[in-house]
Each structure stands twice: as structure tokens, then as C-alpha cells.
């Protein structure tokens, strides 16, 4: 359980808590973050002054050797001591770690956590054509502004953050998932009542995807995107020269025009702020490399599914890769008899070998969830990467210290060392073992409740590993707007019964079942003389569910929801 003694106002504040948070704010350079220095609100915490210790646990420090049986102590979110015989302060809350293993909290360097759902990439007429028009009154952002700061858009809490934590991730890099310029990313700890307290580092990097303008207009082709980027970088360089010249000869020189976008690119062209290029195919990665080299950028590749094919090139250019374990798979509704090109089959076969091959070639890698829809695939896919040639040691580094180093955050994160942030995953066994469970999760030194991710059933079925009994608040995204549905579910074995109610009336569940972590139920109801049948099918993760609802004759819509306490 988390211990919320206070919200943002009227809580007990220790001096050290304030100063630490202010320090982070001061360390950041972006103008947007300067405001944090004023906020500086300690927003969560039990009593951070009280020390916590886990003793007699196996401690995998990552940076140093593993301690077979030792103690780690932290106070106010910062690790105070770690070792075989680290002394435990008198006031410490002591957790018996016998049989447990302590790891640094995992870092997922490719997410959009804490951000509102990104605008959907616009529907396109097959084979091209103009983008679909925006709905009246809707302002579609073009995705062409390099000045977007993710820290300004962060929202704390939410099911996505919760389920990400449930697999042992304590820290995430977050940026928008579509558009050409996807924002200057934020590295956040996945706990906190308010966005500023989640932020570990901002801005981390400028994120770029080879994607066309979302608002229509130039650029609408890949070659246009590349030309747009080149011109913008050249303009930023020119902007710098113009202003330097002006500052040297203010008198008698016409002042250059101020430009926010070009201003935002200054740390990028100086090589001080890395660029994260989202690229997965060989050709896209090469495009990223050629832009990076042409303009002497500090750059990282995010995705990199085909990275193994150009491992030596990546190594020779020293490009770190945030390797996605969101492996391509046959689509859920794939026709089993449809012809699939050999290349696609090979891509599916080879994807799990990627991380291992890159690591062997000496490329610095982090492992990421790569925007996978079901985070429960994260650790199983990491295991697949291990089964396909990535050493467990390399996998662990890729999930912790490497990720921190690539993101320039190895100072406070990535390993269990004195002075670093007390982010830990405490497991009942080896992190990569299928049977291992997360016993505790600590973020900024505070214990966070872990909703155990449901296990995937073994092939051929078995007892369901989830129980959906309870009251659920669901939101259906219909074309006519959101529809709130309350579902009262009772699970018995693999059968689900109950009823739903919404603005359209109440309905009994005519059939409902559980398969693995999937819930499916069908309701029928009378809507103004018309009988409507709707089948909900969703993936359940703890107290949250998301999936689609198929309405006979109307199509299929997304829905998501949560179990009400």
C-alpha cells in the first residue's frame, strides 16, 4: 500500500524533501522546468525522514557485484547504505528480505505514460491521398513544432502507469507517440500525486519520428519530412549565427527576428540535447544515422527492430539503441490461410534475436516496451530475447543502468548505490524467472502497491488466473461520443454472469467467459424498439480492463474501464 498522508496542501514537510526536489528543478535547464522551482511542492510521502531497510536479501546492485545476503538502507528516497553488513538506523522500518531479491527499479525508455492519448494518426485513403479532415472545431496539431515540452503535458496517475508498475518498471521515458516532433521527453518516476514530483529529468531528448504533418500541408511524404528536418536544422544554425552576430554588434545591426522553434533547437544543434529517432526498419535507421552524422547530432535510435541487420554500423557510429521488445506477431484477426510474405515471417522469427545480436556487437542497448498494447507481454518478451541470445546480465543492464546512462540519468538512477534514488523491484526469485513474483516495489523510497499482473494461462487452458467479480466502470468510445457503462460481474470458474447499465438501459449478460486474462461477455437490450446485441471482449490487468465492443450491425468500438473499489 502507498501511504498518502497528505495531498499537496497542509502536509508535513521535511526540509530535506523540499531541498531535494528543488535540486532536481535547478538541475534542469529548460525554461519550462524553471517553473518547477517555484512549485517545489512535496506532494507525497509517508514520512520521508524515516529510514527503511531491507535486510537479509539478495541484492543485485547491477553496478557492482551482487550481494548474496545483505542490507540496503534508504531515507528520504535516497539510498544511504548498501552492503553485507550495512548498519540499520535505529528509527528504520525494517523489512525482512529473507528469500527475496532486490533489483534497481526497471526503466522503460520508450513510453507515452502520463500523456493524454495522442491524436490518432489520420485515416488515409489506401494508396495515399489527402488526410481526412479534422472534425469541426478540432485543432489537429501538425506535429511539426520542435518546441513541445512533454513536462508541460504530464498527468499523474492512471491505469497505464499502474499496469506499467505491475511488471516492475519504476521509471519511464515519456514522449508523444506520433507526429514528426514528439516533444522534448521527460524521465519520470511512476509514482506521485502531481507531475512535478514525478519528474526525474527534463528535458531528456528531442523525439523525432519520420512522420508526415498531421494537419495536412507540407510535408506529406517521407522525403518531404527529411527535407523539412534538414531545412529546420540549417535554419537553427543560421539563427545562432545571426544572433551571435547581433549580440556582438548590437549597435548598428538590425536585430534578427525571434523564433521559438529555432530557439528550441539550439541545444540540439549544439549536440547538448540528444535526438531520439524513432526508427525500426534498416532504411529508417540509416536515415536517422545519416541525419545524425550530417548535422553532428547526439542521437539515439528508438525501436530498432531490425537493428541486428546493421549492428556493425550502429556500433561504428556509437549509436545507442532503445530496443523494443514489442515483437511483431500475426494480427489477432489474421486469416490463417492467407499468404504471408516470407519477409514478414522472417521478421517475426528474427525479432527476439535482435537484442542479443546488438549486445554481442557491442552496441549499447536498453530494452523497452516499445508502446506495446498489453504490458503483460513485457517480461515474457524480455525472456524471449534472453532465450534468443541476450545474456541475463546484459538484459538486466539494458533494463536499468544502460537505460539510465543512455538517457543521461545514471547519476541518480539505474543501480543500487549509495546516493542514488531508492527505486527497487523486490522479487521472490530471479527477475527473469517465469515463476518469480514482485513482492515489493519502491519508488522514490516509498512503497507502491503492486497489482500482480495476471499470468498467461499455459497453452491448452487451465484455471483462470483472474477474477473479475465486482463492479466495473466502463467507457465505450462510440462514434457518437463516450458512453458510460456500469457492469456488475460475478465470476465462477470460467463463467461470468451479471448485468450492465448505461444511458441505454440495463441488460443481463447472456453469456460471459474468461480465457486467460481475457474477459468476453455479451449483452442484448432493447433500444427504442430495436434489439441490439453487443459483445465486450477485453484484457484484464488487475483492476483495469481494455478492449473492444462489437455491436451487431454497427461495427466495433474501443472501451476501457476500471473496477470500482
Amino acid at each position: 500500500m502507498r501511504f498518502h498522508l497528505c495531498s499537496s496542501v497542509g502536509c508535513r514537510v521535511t526540509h530535506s524533501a523540499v531541498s531535494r526536489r528543488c535540486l532536481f528543478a535547478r538541475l534542469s535547464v529548460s525554461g519550462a522546468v524553471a517553473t518547477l522551482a517555484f512549485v517545489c511542492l512535496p506532494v507525497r510521502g509517508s514520512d520521508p525522514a524515516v529510514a527503511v531497510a531491507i535486510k537479509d536479501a539478495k541484492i543485485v546492485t547491477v553496478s557492482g557485484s551482487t550481494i548474496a545476503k545483505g542490507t540496503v538502507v534508504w531515507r528520504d528516497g535516497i539510498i544511504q547504505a548498501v552492503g553485507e553488513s550495512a548498519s540499520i538506523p535505529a528509527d528504520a522500518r525494517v523489512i525482512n528480505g529473507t528469500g527475496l531479491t532486490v533489483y534497481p527499479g526497471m526503466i522503460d525508455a520508450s513510453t507515452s505514460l502520463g500523456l493524454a492519448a495522442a491524436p490518432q494518426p489520420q485515416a488515409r485513403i489506401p494508396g495515399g491521398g489527402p488526410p481526412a479532415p479534422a472534425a469541426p472545431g478540432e485543432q489537429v496539431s501538425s506535429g511539426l513544432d520542435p518546441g513541445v515540452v512533454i513536462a508541460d503535458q504530464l498527468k499523474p496517475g492512471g491505469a497505464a502507469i499502474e499496469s506499467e508498475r505491475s511488471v516492475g518498471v519504476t521509471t519511464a521515458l515519456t514522449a508523444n507517440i506520433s507526429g514528426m516532433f514528439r516533444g522534448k521527453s521527460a524521465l519520470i518516476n511512476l509514482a506521485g500525486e502531481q507531475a512535478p514530483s514525478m519528474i526525474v529529468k527534463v528535458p531528456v531528448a528531442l523525439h523525432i519520428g519520420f512522420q508526415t504533418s498531421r494537419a495536412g500541408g507540407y510535408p506529406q511524404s517521407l522525403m518531404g519530412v527529411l527535407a523539412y528536418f534538414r531545412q529546420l536544422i540549417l535554419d537553427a544554425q543560421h539563427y545562432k549565427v545571426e544572433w551571435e552576430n547581433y549580440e556582438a554588434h548590437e549597435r548598428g545591426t538590425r536585430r534578427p527576428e525571434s523564433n521559438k522553434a529555432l530557439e528550441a533547437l539550439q541545444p540540439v544543434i549544439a549536440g547538448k540535447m540528444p535526438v531520439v529517432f524513432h526508427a525500426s526498419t534498416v532504411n529508417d535507421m540509416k536515415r536517422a544515422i545519416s541525419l545524425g552524422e550530417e548535422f553532428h547530432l547526439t542521437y539515439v535510435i528508438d525501436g530498432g527492430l531490425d537493428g541486428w541487420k546493421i549492428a556493425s554500423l550502429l556500433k561504428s557510429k556509437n549509436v545507442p539503441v532503445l530496443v523494443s521488445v514489442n515483437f511483431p506477431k500475426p494480427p489477432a484477426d489474421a486469416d490463417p490461410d492467407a499468404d504471408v510474405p516470407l519477409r514478414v515471417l522472417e521478421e517475426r522469427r528474427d525479432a527476439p534475436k535482435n537484442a542479443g545480436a546488438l549486445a554481442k556487437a557491442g552496441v549499447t542497448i536498453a530494452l523497452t516496451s516499445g508502446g506495446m498494447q498489453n504490458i503483460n507481454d513485457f517480461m515474457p518478451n524480455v525472456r524471449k530475447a534472453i532465450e534468443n541470445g541476450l545474456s541475463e546480465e546484459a538484459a538486466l543492464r539494458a533494463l536499468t543502468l544502460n537505460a539510465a546512462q543512455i538517457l543521461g540519468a545514471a547519476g541518480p538512477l539505474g543501480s543500487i548505490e549509495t546516493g542514488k534514488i531508492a527505486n527497487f523491484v523486490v522479487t521472490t526469485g530471479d527477475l527473469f524467472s517465469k515463476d518469480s513474483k514482485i513482492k515489493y516495489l519502491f519508488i522514490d523510497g516509498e512503497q507502491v502497491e503492486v497489482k500482480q499482473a495476471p499470468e498467461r494461462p499455459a497453452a491448452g487452458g487451465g484455471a483462470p488466473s483472474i477474477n473479475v467479480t465486482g463492479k466495473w466502470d466502463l467507457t465505450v468510445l462510440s462514434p457518437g461520443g463516450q458512453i458510460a457503462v456500469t457492469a456488475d460481474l460475478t465470476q465462477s470458474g470460467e463463467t461470468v454472469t451479471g448485468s450492465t447499465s448505461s444511458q441505454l438501459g440495463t441488460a443481463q449478460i447472456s453469456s460471459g467467459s474468461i480465457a486467460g486474462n481475457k474477459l468476453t461477455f455479451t449483452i442484448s437490450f432493447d433500444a427504442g424498439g430495436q434489439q441490439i446485441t453487443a459483445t465486450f471482449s477485453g484484457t484484464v490487468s488487475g483492476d483495469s480492463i481494455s478492449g473492444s465492443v462489437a455491436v451487431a450491425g454497427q461495427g466495433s468500438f474501443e472501451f476501457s474501464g476500471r473496477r470500482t473499489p
Partner: protein
Amino acid sequence: MAGAGKRLGFLTLLVALGVALTTGDFGRPSGNVAADSGEVLIKNATIMTASHGTIKNGSILIRNGKIAEVGTNVNVPAGATVIDATGKYVIPGIIDCHSHSATDGGINEGTLSVTSMVRIEDYINDQDINIYRELAGGVTAINVLHGSANAIGGQNAVLKMRWGKPAEDLIFKQAPPGIKFALGENPKRSNFQPGPGQQRRYPATRMGVEEVIREAFTRAKDYKREWDEHNAKVAKGEHPVPPRRDLQLDPLVEILEGKRYVHAHCYRADEILMLIRVADEFGFKIRTFQHVLEGYKVAKEIAKHGAGASTFSDFWAYKMEAYDAIPYNAAIMTRKGVNVSINSDDNERARRLNLDAAKCIKYGGLTEEEALRLVTLNPAWQLGIDKYVGSIDAGKDADLVIYDGHPFSDYSKVEKTFVDGAIYFDREKDVVRRAEILKEKEALRAKEKEKEQPATPRPEQNRPGRRPGE
């Protein structure tokens, strides 16, 4: 050096036999590499040189990827791989002067009327299966052009069909840079409605197209002057703030300086004359008129300007401006002194350009060699690569096609296609490979079915394709 000769011969043999063919996409010779120093002799062939007639019972010696010797009296070096081409024909690799193959998404940056800043080279797709399919039709080089949506389109890329090599190795390094222009219905968007909520783009008339080109070159001249003045100051030792680099105008300055070829999409005689007048006024040259279906009406003027014409043999009437066309177009322009090529503008037509060239013998009475030049030596000149390719002459790149019969016959098939002396298509190997690929696919599918549970597809990026007719 008999030992060395033997070793080289063995390497060559491996290449010639396609031994290194491994798994990959259909026909993908991922292990096929150019014969670096090996020697290959094609003997007893009917050699249609495209430059100096047809040689019966001739031989071609390939060394270091180049044609070392050609004729009836060629020395056979010890250790050379010998291909007996008795009863077969060899022609120079076909060059397609208007292609959109090997690209990674939409070929039109159709948002602006002047998009000279975009480059085909930036989005070459070396995985495009059409490269291999066109090799199977004897094509060894293509001129990949931007689409025709804009009065001034993007920069082109001339490629060699080195299937299996990465994109950067497909570029025909010695080819001068070029750019696409377009006149008529496409740039004025006559046949394309703007999407709902989208503005109609300027220009909407042929007058407007001319104005867009004129305006762009006026800006380019100003820009060039700005840079010339700046460079003069720098030469004098001053340190002025340089002008802004403009990626849109840089290529237009190169055109004005004669360093970049203009390939202008056009149909009607009036717009062809218009562009010649504008080019004369601004002092630049058009390298090729593309499509140019009414070229036969203004062939003298095209010849006088020094431009080439790259047309279809018998494809027309697909829109208003493409009606006044005749199958004699290529022959008439040839007789009037225009350098003429036949192009495909199409992944499928590209595989039978030999037959499209042959039609110009029936319609217009070109000689066999003149017809062959329409898809070899002439497009080579149009792309500025005739020093390297386009005919079977000693010293040129060994880009060659072996047909099992006369290349102008419907019944003839390509047996082998060479680029730089290496075999990139081999019909015999292809047939074997088809069965292997089927097996590989089945094995992978079976393995997937064993274990895989359905999940999400790999996310696609929003990249536009090409609209039909552009």
C-alpha cells in the same frame, strides 16, 4: 600467375553459379556479390551492341565488372568462367528513364507547387521486389523520378539494379543530379480534388504553371546573387553573416549553372514550347521531356533546344491532355534529330521495355539498332551516363542481358542479367529458388502456429502511397 588466375576463376564461378544465395525475400540474392576481379566470357552469342551493329558468333570478356573485350576474336584467359551463349542474344542492360520503383512510400510531395528540396535519394527502398522483377526484364538502371504533382518537383536518383545491396550502393554514382518538372493537368491539379476542408492549390491553369516556374527561377537568381556577393566579401577577407541556406533554391541555382538535369513531365505541344521559352529566357537547358506525347508536333524545336524526349510507345488517352498521341511519336522525333527513349513510368511495363522498343520498328520503321537504342544508349545519354553504360563497348560497365531468343520477340525470355559483371538475375536459379522459398515459408508458418498467440500488429507509420496517374 596461373595459380592466381585459377583462384579468381573459382570465385567467379561461385558468383556465376549464385552459390551464395541464402535465405531472403523472393529471389533476394543476399549473398550475391559483384565479381571483383574475376573474368567471365560470354561466347558464341549474337551481340546487339546498340553502338556498332550486331555481332554474330561474338564473345564478350568481362573483367573487373567492365567489358574488357567484345568481338569475334576475343582472347580467352585461363581460369575465366565461360558461358556458352550459342543461339542466344546479348544486349546492353535496359535503362528506364522514368521509374518510381525502389521507393519507400509516396512519390509526390504534393503539398507545394515547388518542392525542389525533396530528394528521391532520401527514401530509396532497397527491399522493393520490383528491383528484382525489373532485372528479370533486363533492366539494369533506372531513373527514379519524383511524381508530377508539382510544377517543380523533387530531385531524382539514378540507380543501378544491384539487388541485395543497401540503398546507398544502388546509387549510380557518376550520374549527374537531376530534378523533375511537370506541366499541364497534374501540376494544375485538374484531375485531383482537394480533400474536404483543404484549399485548392495554386496554380490551376497552364498559365499559372508557367508563372510558378518563372517565379521560382526569379527567386533562385536573387538567391544566387546574394550568395555570390557574400562569397565575394569572404574572398576579400570580410566576415559577413552568410545568407540563409535555402534547400528549395539550391537545386534551382544548380540548374541555372548547368549542373542539374531537368526532366520535365509534359504532354501538349504548347506547353513544351512554353518551357523551352522559359528555359531560354533564364538560360538553362531541359535535358528530357518526359511522356511528351505531342512531341512529334514540335520535334524540330525540341531538337534545336538540345533536349531529349522520353516517351511511351503506345500508351495514351488516359486523360484529356493525353489524347492527341500516335504510335509514330518516337520514330518521328528520332528522324527529326531528337534523342528519344522509351520509358515505363510503371513497375510492370518496366519488365517488357524490350517489346515497347520493338513496336517502334512496326510504327515508324526504325532500324533494329535504333529501336534498341530507345531503351539503352539513348536513355543513357539522357541521364548523362552514356560514358559508362548503354552499349556493348570495351571499357563500359558490364551491364548485360542474355535473352534466349531475339530480344524483340514476345517469346524470348531473359536468362541472365549482369550488373557490373555480376549476375543479379538468373532464370535457372530463380526457378529452383521458388520451391525453396515455398518450403521456407511453410516451415516458418508451421512453427508460428505451434506457439504463437495472436497479438498486435507492428505499428505502421502514416506514409502516403501514390495516387493513380501521378
